[in-house]
């Protein structure tokens, strides 16, 4: 029998997510013991061809679907979508060791989807107000105006009009 593994999960839907810990022990044959909040759940988990799971927990049947994005794991069951930041102990230690300083005043405006830049309103060095439009990205026939979250100065403009951008592409940096 494999040794139990402890995971830490933060519910990213919460305003101030707090980590909850879970331990998972494989019993073999698709069965696991999961301990959460001191409660012991003996579950049967069958992987499905589409990457999901059929989970049976004390008779309750859940058809579960997952979507991964780095350490963020989105889980959908019975119409509820939850996103967790889920890591195991090893990863948690690794993170603590490399936790970086995040500049509070720096705003990076990224493209929220693949599309095309149709308008750039600002130049490097320009001062912007909160809510001021910076760039317009068109995707699927909709134009989306991206605005400054806070006042600041444009330090970098990556966006070029007429150029296609990928999901998450850096467009403008405001400091």
């Amino acid at each position: 029998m494999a040794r139990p593994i402890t995971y830490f999960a933060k519910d990213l839907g919460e305003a101030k997510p707090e980590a909850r810990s879970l331990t998972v022990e494989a019993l073999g044959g698709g069965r696991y013991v999961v301990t959460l909040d001191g409660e012991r759940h003996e579950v049967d988990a069958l992987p499905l061809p589409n990457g999901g799971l059929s989970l049976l927990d004390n008779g309750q049947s859940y058809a579960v679907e997952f979507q991964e994005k780095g350490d963020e794991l989105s889980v959908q069951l019975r119409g509820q979508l939850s996103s967790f930041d889920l890591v195991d102990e090893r990863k948690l230690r690794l993170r603590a060791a490399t936790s970086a300083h995040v500049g509070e005043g720096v705003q990076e405006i990224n493209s929220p989807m693949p599309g095309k830049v149709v308008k750039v309103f600002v130049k490097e060095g320009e001062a912007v107000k909160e809510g001021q439009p910076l760039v317009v990205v068109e995707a699927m026939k909709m134009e989306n105006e991206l605005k400054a979250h806070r006042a600041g100065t444009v330090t970098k403009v990556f966006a070029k009009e007429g150029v296609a951008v990928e999901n998450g592409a850096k467009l403008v940096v405001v400091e």
Partner: protein
Amino acid sequence: MARIKKVLVANRGEIAIRVMRTCRELGLPTVAVFSEADRSALHTRFADEAYCVGPAPSRESYLVIDNIIDAARRSGADAIHPGYGFLSENPTFVRACEKAGLTFIGPPASAMDAMGDKVRARTNMMKAGVPVVPGTTAPFANVEEARTYAKSIGYPVMLKASGGGGGKGMRRVDREEDLDSAWRTARSEAMSAFNNDTVYMEKFLDQPHHIEIQVFADMHGNCIHLNERECSAQRRNQKVVEEAPSPIISVEMRKAMGEVAVKAAKAVGYVGAGTIEFLVDAKRNFYFLEMNTRLQVEHPVTEWTTGIDLVAWQIHVAQGGVLPFVRPVQPRGHAIEVRVYAEDPATNFMPSPGKIDSVRVPSGPYVRDDSGVYPGYTVPNVYDPMISKLSVWAPTRMEAILRMKRALSEYSLKGITTNLRYLEHIVSHPEFMKGDYDTGFLPREHQKLLGEKNEKLTKASLIAAAVYAHQRGEKQAASIAPAAAAGTVSTWRTGRPNSWKRS
């Protein structure tokens, strides 16, 4: 007029499939057109023939009249169905079809001229004695004229594209300081969607209902209406949920609106399927908003409640056929449609194109799905984000709502973000269930419609997430040492030994 022998469908995605389904039932061979981005789209292989009409941007493919006509010529198609969007409301296209000897399955160019440009349509309707919403009837020369006019009728106002609908080029403006930005984006969207950046302005009615009447006319002077559709559930001026009949309309009001709609259609010599859109205020006054001179996305709710195949009627009428009946019918039971979009409601409905890994579509009693996607398909980022229309029927409205909830709970589209859960929350919302919801409903309740959490389900999700991570870990370990752990890999991939025992 001659019988149609082969139909080219000048559209893509779910509406192309919808039209081809009826053609197939009528025994008519179909011709698809596709852009270079749509070689792998479902409509390209659903048709009997398929021709490439240009590169990905619709302005270089689906909107290029010569390329469409050329595909018809090469395939020997003798009729063109335009679907909705793209060239469906373009009178130049209708004239080009006529010139090429092709039957256009839709209204005559003259009716489009009269109704297609919304500013002209308002003028025509006022002449015909149809009530309209206060607003401009002439286009603005510049933003200053717009600013002056907005002041005169008072904020809030709506900026609207003269050249088309579908929420494109449409902006609500609440305050003078927002006018510049709205003017810019509305015109730019209008240009890219309709190749015409003319916008006009209307008084924004406070929380009106958006209710529309389906009309149908043949070439022999017959024109009927097929009752109303309630389309007040809108976000960013785009319809999201539609139903028939409207929960707030009496038999008398249906009759009155239907008669006005038929009058409007007759005033422009209409032929084929068309829709007269009205705004209905709190006192149940109704105002002409615009006419859509084509099939509507929400046509299934009318089909469910009348038993008619509207596309079959369009083809019948385009061949010169007489309307199968000319007396109004009362709607039978209740139908609801929701539009499934590749978008994220939580981030202001940001489009979310991408690859669909798996699809499970609901079915069972009185459930209909009109979609144009398949597992493994990549939703391109250059076209409209609607991927399916899901509709249901039931004897009563409450049963239809419960059926829609059930159907939505079965719908699974993995790989991309969709508005499926948002739609479930709409149809479960007390205001929707009550039935008297106006166009302010979705924006007003936005936060609530994103959904609330249930601790029991959160716990189950956490457990599922942890087991998933554990299995992923096992799989990774196995792939690092494949020889040693081959059994594990096979357990994961192809099921596992039948070790399940009764417990």
